[in-house]
């Protein structure tokens, strides 16, 4: 399935715009190609086709250029790529993996990204995320499903003070609004 030729209007699940307050910037993520790849036996073939080695270590990610592979489970990866890859990457992965049992499912629209960055990012996320987020405990490159208050998210540390949140689309406004609320609190502190 290729989205390259579509002219119909696309509506993001988040209508908010990027903004900074109190040292934290919130940015709705741009559309991405998102694929769920399942099947441990397919990982090796996928490494080459995807262009980045799929992490075998729990809760890690690997990136190559604008592509990223996030370990979500022992045979489960979330592959993120720019939208421009939507026409070619699923097909090339499918053909590279043809010999290995696997599942490849397009979830580009299932979820959306919220990017959170800035010096106050750890206490902000820790209002809702129960994991320790110091760099020692949650280093750059770590990625994991976890809980954000009553929503489930994938939390991926992309920089010392930058996180990428993946969240199912109908939960995205909830996560965004809670982040906004606590960002205001922390800015007033």
């Amino acid at each position, binding site marked *: 399935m290729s989205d390259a030729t579509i002219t119909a209007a696309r509506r993001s699940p988040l209508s908010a715009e990027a903004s900074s307050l109190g040292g934290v910037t919130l940015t709705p993520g741009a559309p991405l190609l998102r694929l769920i790849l*399942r099947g441990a036996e397919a990982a090796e073939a996928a490494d080459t086709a995807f262009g980045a080695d799929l992490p075998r270590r729990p809760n890690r990610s690997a990136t190559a250029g604008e592509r990223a592979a996030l370990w979500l489970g022992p045979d489960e990866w979330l592959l993120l790529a720019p939208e421009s890859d939507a026409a070619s990457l699923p097909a090339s992965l499918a053909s590279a993996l043809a010999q290995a049992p696997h599942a490849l499912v397009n979830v580009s629209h299932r979820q959306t990204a919220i990017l959170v960055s800035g010096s106050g990012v750890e206490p902000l996320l820790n209002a809702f995320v129960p994991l320790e987020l110091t760099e020692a405990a949650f280093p750059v490159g770590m990625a994991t499903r976890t809980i954000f208050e009553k929503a489930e998210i994938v939390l991926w540390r992309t920089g010392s003070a930058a996180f990428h949140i993946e969240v199912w689309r109908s939960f995205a406004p909830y996560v965004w609004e809670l982040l906004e609320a606590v960002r205001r609190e922390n800015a007033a502190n």
Partner: protein
Amino acid sequence: MNAPFRTEAGGRVDRARPLSFTFDGKSYPGFEGDTLASALLANGVHLVGRSFKYHRPRGLLSAGAEEPNALVGVGRGGRYTPNLRATQVELFDGLVAESQNRWPSLGFDVGEVNDLAPAGLLSAGFYYKTFMAPAGAWKSVFEPIIRKTAGLGVAPQEPDPDHYTHRHAFCDVLVVGAGAAGLAAALAAAGAGARVILADEQAELGGGLLSERGATIDGVEASAWAERTVAALRANPNVTLLTRAQCFGYYAQNFLGIVERLTDHASSPHPDLPRERMWKVRAKQVVLATGAIERPFCFPDNDRPGVMLASAARTYVNRYGVRPGSRALVFTADESGYAAALDLASAGLAVVCIAELRAQADGPGARAARAAGLAVHPSTVVTGVSGRLRVTGATLGAIGPDGRVTPGQTVACDLVLMAGGWTPAVHLFSQSRGKLRFDEERQVYLPGVSAQDERSAGACNGTFGIAASLAEGFAAGADAATKAGFAATAPATPDVKGEIVPAGGFHGAVPHHRDPQKVKAFVDFQNDVTAKDIKLAVREGMRSIEHVKRYTTNGMATDQGKTSNMQGLAIASDALGKPMPQVGLTTFRPPYTPVTFGAFAGHSRGLAFDPIRRTPTHDWAAAQGAVFEDVGMWKRAWFFPRRGEDMHAAVERECRQVRASVGIFDGSTLGKIEVVGPDAAEFMNRLYTNPWSKLEPGRCRYGLMLNEAGFVMDDGVIGRLAADRFHVTTTTGGAPRVLAHMEDYLQTEFTDLKVWLTSTTEQWAVIAVQGPNARKVLEPLVEGIDISAAAMPHMSLREGRICGVPTRLFRVSFTGELGFEVNVPADYGQAVWEAVWAEGQKHDMVAYGTESMHVLRAEKGYIIVGQETDGTVTPNDLGLDWAIGKAKPDFVGKRSLTRPDLVKADRKQLVGLLTEDPAVLLEEGAQVAAVATPVRGTPALGHVTSAYRSPAAGRSIAMALVAGGRARKGQTLYVPMANGAIAVTVTDPIFFDPKGERLDV
């Protein structure tokens, strides 16, 4: 305006910042740094509340969290908070506070007649004994009266305008309490490089050091040393200092709850600031430095305003610059009482004399007091006080060698201080499941065997005095840091001079010569429990302290017995003639002090209580005036009323138009799971009742899912996209449950299968187009798919494009009409919907909601899992045997279908019910009976599962589960209702187009 009892200088209040506040409508001056309690005392106000049961006038007993008497309501409107301890309320300009539990006024309270009631009327066990009979009278008569005249503050009526927040935090060492031991522990741990959180309930860190006078540490005043230490800690980036932060609970695996108050102390806080922040701290190591609570003495009328803990008086004088009276009598059994006497004398109060309960009065305290010219009387007790709204004098008694008390002189005084010794605050240690040990010598419970990674230091560990607390704090901090993985050594203890170290103490009721039946000597001030009550409980057979507590309510008020538990235990132990440890100790439970509901709720309130899930076409429906209903967390369009329409009219119009032409419906909330892998068909065979191996790609089938017990748990249409790929749909509410159920079997039972599951619920927007004109609407929009009847039959699936957007197009129907479900990637949902809608206008397309969906499917007898089923319904009960692949060797639930209970002839079966009067609509959930007026206790035959007005049938219709229902077709049954039974005829559960001719067009 001058506060008459303010000292001329000294204390930690900011005399340059005067404030004004009101108490019970009267305005008073105070200073920044005051508590409400200190400011009231500065103005000579001692009467601050009325007691719970007897409505006795009460004054300030303490200066801290243990305060039982001075419960006040603070604030106005929705910000009104009842039951706050005046000793912990920080003063700000404009603060409005009021007393509680009095009517009509604090000075004159009619409830005080309770205090004059004949002995025994309101004694222990009163509630149990008095209100036993007649049955029912409790609820209707007694409880309302008691609630009106007794009780604590009143909850505010308005919604709380504040907001509350949470924070998960992690540290190497959490130190609770910032007195001498806590500061030392934090210093030692932080010095070793550990990440430290230091939390203290007060606005200023320093604890008891802030109330010291005379003692020096390393040559500076104790309070100055505290300031210096706090500054050093604040400069350390590894240290988080939390003030106004009450650690209220110690849970498993070193998880502690702390509530930080952020705005209560400010007159106009920033509107974005939360009122409170709940810290959920996971600490590698914990140091408890929670101090100790001074015990009052239990003597007659020990609750009169002006009778106060000695430590509290010391705090008021030294820390707040307030004289809590003019003429003080000090009653002590501990060296610390002398320290208070000396401090009061030095602040200009007259210390009438020091009554020392102990026979020996030659400790360091007594010596210092005598040296200062104060009169010390050993073996002396206070046997009563005069004055009602304020102490005016006290009567002394002498304890003879035989222990009997002979009445002594009466002294005039307006302040009676009690120094009964110290009870270590072991609450958090005990909450941590640590085992307390009883210290025989001092007759107190102390931390014993740890259950978690914690240690106690200072007074809470039975270690008193500044020097000893500092030493133990340093050691505890170093130990905690070491165990957290840091190389730490305890710093050298600073040089402490001039302190009077607490030592001594007394337990139980103070002996006196008076008739015990005629006096009230209070143990629990907040619940009005007297020594007499405890003794009565023992006489009436209570043996364990847990029983005594419940019988007398000792320690069961909001202060949780901080000043009364040990006292009650000592009196019970005396009465039982057993040592304290054998009588037991009541359990310490969180919270240490009351915690607001708001703090627990955090942001989970109002619109943020739960996520509100909206579909990709929500905004369109909202713009069309849809009324939404909540389905789980989803908002679903319920119906689309036009001007003047009620739900009934809208639904009737929507249903008619779907069957007459075409309707559009948002099915996006349906759960979707992509089942992919070489063993996908085999997996489906095992998880669903139906056979899947022979289903061709491009075809769909109705799937029925059972749990292992054989009961229906979900259903939905399932399409096969390819040999190794299925597009499974589930009910809206069942989506997560079904996926978890599938994962469970896949991961733990059918581990041989190469197949994987991915939720695609939110990947796809689902636009259902239903009605005889559905094909005409879609034909112009679809690219690359032949949707003609011949090319795309009912229950088929094609991939192609619609409006340029990739689609999975299902030909399915949940209405009994020709129907399609257009799946498009969710971001395109609304654009495609609008295009379909625009095309549909040529055919008078109607948008319909979930209510019409329900009616249309009920007319066809299609079940809804969760409505026609309740977890005890089998496929056969529903008449769905056709959906079972009988040739399959196994599927989840198959074996159970032949269990004896599941094949009984009288099982409840799904049938239709038609009322005799077609206009009468049955109530869903109503019971079905064989006769119009069944004998009371007769089991129902079944119940109504669905009932609607059916436009297609032109009458009301209903489905029901009825015992042996299918064999009852044609019978008349009854649905008994409050206003008479409704006669119904049992029919097939299908009310329209029974042959399904409208589907295949």
